[in-house]
């Protein structure tokens, strides 16, 4: 579906260059639900923007490549390189940006926003009535009341707007859906509903779903495979269950340990310190400063992403030996 090779996506301004994504290689496989986890500022939003091909200045791709392969109208695979992504936006690949609550046009009714999303070349554009029926049907599948169609965005609550946005982003049945923090700032009930919406669609349509979230709980519930990012690089990559039961990177272990669990009253610890600057990243492993297991080697040399087994990779000098922490704890 998508092959990302040594991607460097930087924010380039006259004064500073922020190396938000600094050497990321990743494969997005067709039909999977891939999670990208990490704290704020680790580069995950930037990565997803690059995957979509949405590069507003000053964001530029400074190195590496992204190739996306989608199934063309005749069913044959078509490969597109990152500069040409625009041509497949919305139809084959859609993007739900962070903070999408303000993505809807405030002066246009919801149903018209759906109509506007249909490309001009599509015959459905001419037959409004049929399109409306399709819409109502689609909303019903997603458990959204048909009354939202007539509403303006401000008349809907935050959670409802987000559900509408997910419907909007998926209603042309794109093959790849990129969701950047789709449930942040929403309460747990709506969060569960939206994640259920996305996974149900994925099962039905067989599309590929990439979910970015800082909430590890979300990843556990929903993703097949996950990538943990830290300071612009991927530090761990593997099947979700494995990553949770046997995290190989100290950062992953600390992330999992920091989640409070209802029913367990023990003292939970957050992660001390803060991520390094992305303008002048440190030599060596970027997590070394906060890592309780850091060695001299860690501070000198950047660890590469190595295989732990066929499906699990980690970027850590201590990887072969492994560290404790995870569900087992």
């Amino acid at each position: 579906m998508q092959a990302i090779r040594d991607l460097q996506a930087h924010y380039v301004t006259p004064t500073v260059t922020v190396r938000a994504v600094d050497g990321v290689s990743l494969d997005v496989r067709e039909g999977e639900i891939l999670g990208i986890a990490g704290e704020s500022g680790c580069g995950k939003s930037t990565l997803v923007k690059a995957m979509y091909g949405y590069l507003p200045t000053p964001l530029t791709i400074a190195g590496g490549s992204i190739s996306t392969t989608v199934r063309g109208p005749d069913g044959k695979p078509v490969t597109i390189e990152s500069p040409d992504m625009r041509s497949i936006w919305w139809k084959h690949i859609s993007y739900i940006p962070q903070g999408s609550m303000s993505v809807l046009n405030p002066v246009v009714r919801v149903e018209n926003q759906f109509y506007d999303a249909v490309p001009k070349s599509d015959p459905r554009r001419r037959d409004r009535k049929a399109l409306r029926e399709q819409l109502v049907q689609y909303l019903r599948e997603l458990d959204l009341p048909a009354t939202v169609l007539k509403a303006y965005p401000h008349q809907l609550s935050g959670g409802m707007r987000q559900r509408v946005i997910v419907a909007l982003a998926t209603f042309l049945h794109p093959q790849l859906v990129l969701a950047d923090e789709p449930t942040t700032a929403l309460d747990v009930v709506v969060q569960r509903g939206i994640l259920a919406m996305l996974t149900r669609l994925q099962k039905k349509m067989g599309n590929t779903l990439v979910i970015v979230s800082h909430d590890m709980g979300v990843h556990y519930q929903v993703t097949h495979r996950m990538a943990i990012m830290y300071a612009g690089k991927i530090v761990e990559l593997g099947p979700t269950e494995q990553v949770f039961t046997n995290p190989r990177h100290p950062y992953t272990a600390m992330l999992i340990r920091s989640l409070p669990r209802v029913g367990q009253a023990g003292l939970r610890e957050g992660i001390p310190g803060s991520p390094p600057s992305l303008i002048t990243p440190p030599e060596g492993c970027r997590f070394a400063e906060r890592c309780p297991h850091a060695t001299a080697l860690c501070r000198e040399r950047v660890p590469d992403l190595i295989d732990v087994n066929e499906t699990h990779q980690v970027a850590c000098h201590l990887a072969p030996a492994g560290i404790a922490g995870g569900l087992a704890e």
Partner: protein
Amino acid sequence: MSNNLLEIRNLTKVFKTGGLVFGTRLAAVDNVSLAVAADRPAILSIVGESGSGKTTLARILLRLQEPTSGEVQLDGKPLFGRKGTFADTEFRRFVQPVFQNPFEAFSPHKTVDSYLYATAMNLGVAGTRDEATKVIGDILASVGLDLGKVCGKYPHQFSGGELQRVSIARALIPRPRLIIADEPVSALDASLRMNVVNQFLDLKRQFGVSFVYVTHDLSTAYYVSDYIAIMFRGQVVEFGPAGQVLTAPSHPYTQLLMDCVPKVGQKWDTEIDLPDVETVEFAATGCKFASRCQCARDVCRKQRPPMVELGDDRRVLCFKASDFTA
């Protein structure tokens, strides 16, 4: 009988929404009664979805909004009304806020320490700038920050977690008895929330300050509170000691909330009913949760449920519970 630290009685706030002619009235806070005792510092969590009325309640407690009816008393003194109520300065020394988004809580045009000094000097904590510096330095240290690193900086120069700690420090300067924290960790990464929430526990112990912690995050609420009030569409549907309410919920909505927390180690297996458009649920006669409740019966849809005392300081607004106690 000594006064409760915080006493809320039959508090109601009605908003008119929609157009001038066809608008509807919406009770954002609907007959809420809660109390926090004064004998020892406590953390009361008010938990609810968006649209539950918890933020409106928080604003009323901060006197940023006026209620339509009902009363609020702090240490026996009413918050609203003409007579016998708090003077501004007195109020600000008693209650302080912590807001959801730390980057919104400070003006981007001012340094954050200007707020710290203002609080210290305006609310009578320090007489001179030097005294203020000492006080501020101590309080910042108690939240794990260094005055030297905070001074002269603008909000954008901090991370979310750090800035929220500055916000908490500012609230502590006048040694308030009550801090109202409106979703203080929602804008932070899940991994950073524990840091802030641990801070609350620490401050409660160190300074003897009580918190009203408004949130939709059940996990931190469980972790930090003494008491929990669950709100749904403006009403308190369940109240009691935190541990009990969350491990053995009585109200179906509390149970739903618990089920929806993405727990590591337990996968979701069932479908749930999602909320309808807000105004529809608010306008329901009878129990507002009836349309989504698994146990709903006819009486639930027709009549408003009673508040049932379950003993042990627990209360629930449900017909199901009244069956057992009847």
